[in-house]
């Protein structure tokens, strides 16, 4: 099913690209509806994909026929004799985005288990925070940078960045392997990495962070996610220089943990904590890194929609071979991007160490003065300030307070998505349904 939906999405994205966009704020909607008919076998599932909104203006169904025919011929015929969805299901969608421009329905056999709790489960995928990413020789892309991590309780309102800040890496040209060329894949192919660290803690320069996962997502030239070549990415950790990255190790996560993921996920091996006291007192903020790999292709002899669709399929099919054929340059580029991202992390660790070791001196010196002072007024003032009874409690209390105020030092940044989200939490302007 995913493959079919992917193809349809690919078609819509390419159509959208062909049509000039008048501003990126144009509302548009894409609906993927999955349903079963009453009494129908649970092994049959219907799927409808519908597009609506000004962005899809210009999609003429008659022009699409040859492409749809190709699609039909390339898939099992039985998938296409599908009933139409209940019009009421589509009403909520068309109310938001206007009349339908595209409606495709097909039927598929699946083996899927749902736990529905006897109620309809509907999920809207919304992009709460987006970022425009400018890629080389390509129109800008909008990236969903929403971060779902809830801020800790001590963070004040309006002081937490709810998005991320993608960093665009250098474009890496890819040579096409002979096998793919034989099948008709020509032109210029390249890959451009974009990294996104989440949650963003740039406004908290002293906060300890810990990278726990790296997720790699691959997107085809039409911006539709493609299944990453599993062998290439499974072997990637062995080719990366983890020491240079400041990491202890990377391990591929088990597939079942990320069943909905279209990419590869790596778990970052953590450094064992040498100081048990430190471990208990200072829990670092866990972060994950998303590494987007945007494939780009251009072929002056390839301009028809059907050719573009076919090329996309070829690229996805031979992606493993393409990446293996360019292993050294791709690995080097990924190493560079990860290094650039992790440089800031490693600097943070060094700063952490500076703060921690100096804090020990500050606290021990202050407590020593209090302990050896014979000035009762001074000692009483210190104990009362921190609401403790003796210098032992004073030491613990000062330590905790210093750790807290230092770790959560807040330096606001205009670029972060904190104040604006607080001002417009319910606004649809900042949100759009996008897959």
């Amino acid at each position, binding site marked *: 099913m995913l493959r079919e939906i992917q193809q349809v999405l690919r078609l819509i994205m390419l159509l959208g690209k062909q049509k000039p966009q008048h501003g990126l704020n144009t509302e548009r909607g894409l609906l993927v509806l999955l349903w079963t008919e009453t009494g129908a076998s649970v092994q049959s599932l219907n799927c409808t994909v519908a597009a609506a909104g000004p962005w899809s203006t210009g999609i003429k169904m008659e022009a699409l026929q040859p492409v749809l025919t190709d699609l039909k011929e390339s898939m099992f015929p039985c998938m296409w004799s599908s009933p139409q969805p209940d019009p009421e299901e589509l009403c909520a969608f068309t109310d938001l985005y206007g009349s339908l421009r595209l409606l495709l329905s097909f039927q598929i056999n699946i083996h899927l288990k749902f736990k529905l709790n006897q109620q309809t489960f509907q999920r809207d995928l919304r992009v709460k925070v987006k970022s425009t990413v400018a890629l080389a020789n390509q129109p800008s892309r909008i990236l969903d940078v929403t971060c779902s991590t809830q801020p800790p309780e001590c963070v004040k309102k309006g002081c937490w960045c709810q998005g991320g800040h993608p960093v665009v890496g250098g474009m890496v040209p890819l040579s096409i392997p002979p096998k793919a060329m034989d099948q008709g894949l020509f032109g210029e192919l390249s890959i451009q990495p974009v990294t996104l660290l989440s949650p963003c803690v740039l406004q908290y320069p002293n906060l300890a962070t810990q990278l726990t996962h790296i997720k790699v997502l691959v997107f085809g030239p039409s911006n539709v996610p493609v299944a990453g070549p599993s062998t290439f990415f499974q072997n990637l950790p062995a080719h990366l220089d983890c020491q240079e990255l400041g990491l202890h190790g990377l391990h591929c996560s088990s597939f079942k943990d990320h069943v909905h993921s279209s990419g590869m996920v790596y778990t970052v091996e953590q450094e064992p904590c040498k100081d048990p006291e430190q471990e208990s007192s200072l829990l670092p903020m866990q972060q994950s890194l998303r590494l987007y790999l945007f494939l780009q292709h251009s072929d002056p002899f390839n301009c028809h929609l059907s050719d573009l669709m076919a090329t996309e399929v070829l690229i996805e099919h031979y992606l493993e071979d393409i990446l293996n054929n360019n292993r050294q340059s791709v690995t080097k580029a990924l190493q560079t991007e990860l290094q650039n991202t992790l440089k800031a992390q490693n600097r943070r660790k060094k700063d952490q160490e*500076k703060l921690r070791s100096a804090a020990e001196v500050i606290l021990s010196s202050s407590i020593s003065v209090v302990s*050896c002072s014979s000035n009762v007024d001074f000692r009483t003032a210190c104990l009362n300030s921190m609401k403790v009874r003796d210098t032992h409690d004073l030491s613990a209390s000062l330590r905790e307070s*210093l750790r807290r105020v230092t770790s959560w*030092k807040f330096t606001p940044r205009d670029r972060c998505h904190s104040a604006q989200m607080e001002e417009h939490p319910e606004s649809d302007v900042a949100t759009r349904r996008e897959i």
Partner: protein
Amino acid sequence: MMGSCEAGLFTEIDKLRAELVNNVEVMPGCQRDEEEITYREILSRIENVILGIVTSLSKDENPVLALPNRSSWANVSFDSAIGLQMNSGSSVTSIRSDSPSSVRKFGQILKIFLVIYKLVQSNSYATKRDIYYNNTQLFGSQKTVDNIVDDISCMLKVPRRSLHVMATSKGLISGDLCYLEEDGTRIDCRSGSAAVAVSSNIGGIRNIVSSAKFVMIVEKDATFQRLLDDDFCAKLSPCIIITGKGVPDVNSRLMVRKLWDTLHIPIFALVDADPHGIEIMCIYKYGSVAMSFEAHNLTVPSVMWLGLLPSDLQRLRVPEDALIPLTKRDENKLSSLLKRPYLTSQPDWQKEMELMRQTQVKAEIQSLAAIAPDFLTNIYLPNKLRYGGWV
């Protein structure tokens, strides 16, 4: 030949002395202030700093230390009776405990606060070197400790010696002078061939005995040694010579000040005829920006410039190959000196410096040896002193 046999040798010096004694402004309050800062008060000032830190943390605020800025000319003003002194509302540098770039310094300052607290409390003493070597990893360098001790002295408005932190003296002294150290050791500087190290505890010196007619500050150790070798103190007896071996340390400056306060005799400076030498002389006379907070204890505004004057080079026809062209750095230093607030009250010094700028040459005292090997000790200095050749 003993200088004391020539009665006319000190006529001009005696005249100058009489003039200086008439003009001197007595500042008894300064010494009294120092005595009034008891050990209890010093401990209390340190406790206030610690209480400030604890109070900040109790309010969930990050502690910050405010250090008076000791390197800015904007924070000093000139008083002809005192020299360069720190303004009361001087700007401060904030040392934050929540910034990786300053937190180490914050810790170093607190550590030294603790060391000083314990020294004062136990009435014991330590040198700056001791403090550094007790924790080299934390401090990194001796200079760090030296700067922080001076910062704390300025912040608490307490002289360094009252913090029970001593510094090993750099300077040397020789001539008609005897005194007792605080521990009762008798120091006699009258040995002609060997000099005595300047005391580490100037404040503890007592029972100063001297019949010296003048004190001569010598910029360089090489010149000082030359004078010792030539038996200068015997030839121009009675006198005292002292060197800080270049830029003077606090103890050397305190010693000069002590001699002035006790003996009220003319203080002359013998420096190279170059911008660096002039600047060193200005430190003795007017003080430095870095130590301006303690100016009233360290400066001797009555210091006179004996030599080597730029006008001497022309007058004595010092051979050209003994002269050195001014470098760009020298010119910049000269320009900077001419802009300093204290030089407006020294037109004769300005004239000499303008002459140096015009001729574009400088010279070391050693250049006088090009005239004759013993010219400095036997001709130049005696004539300068006899005929009032100072400015």
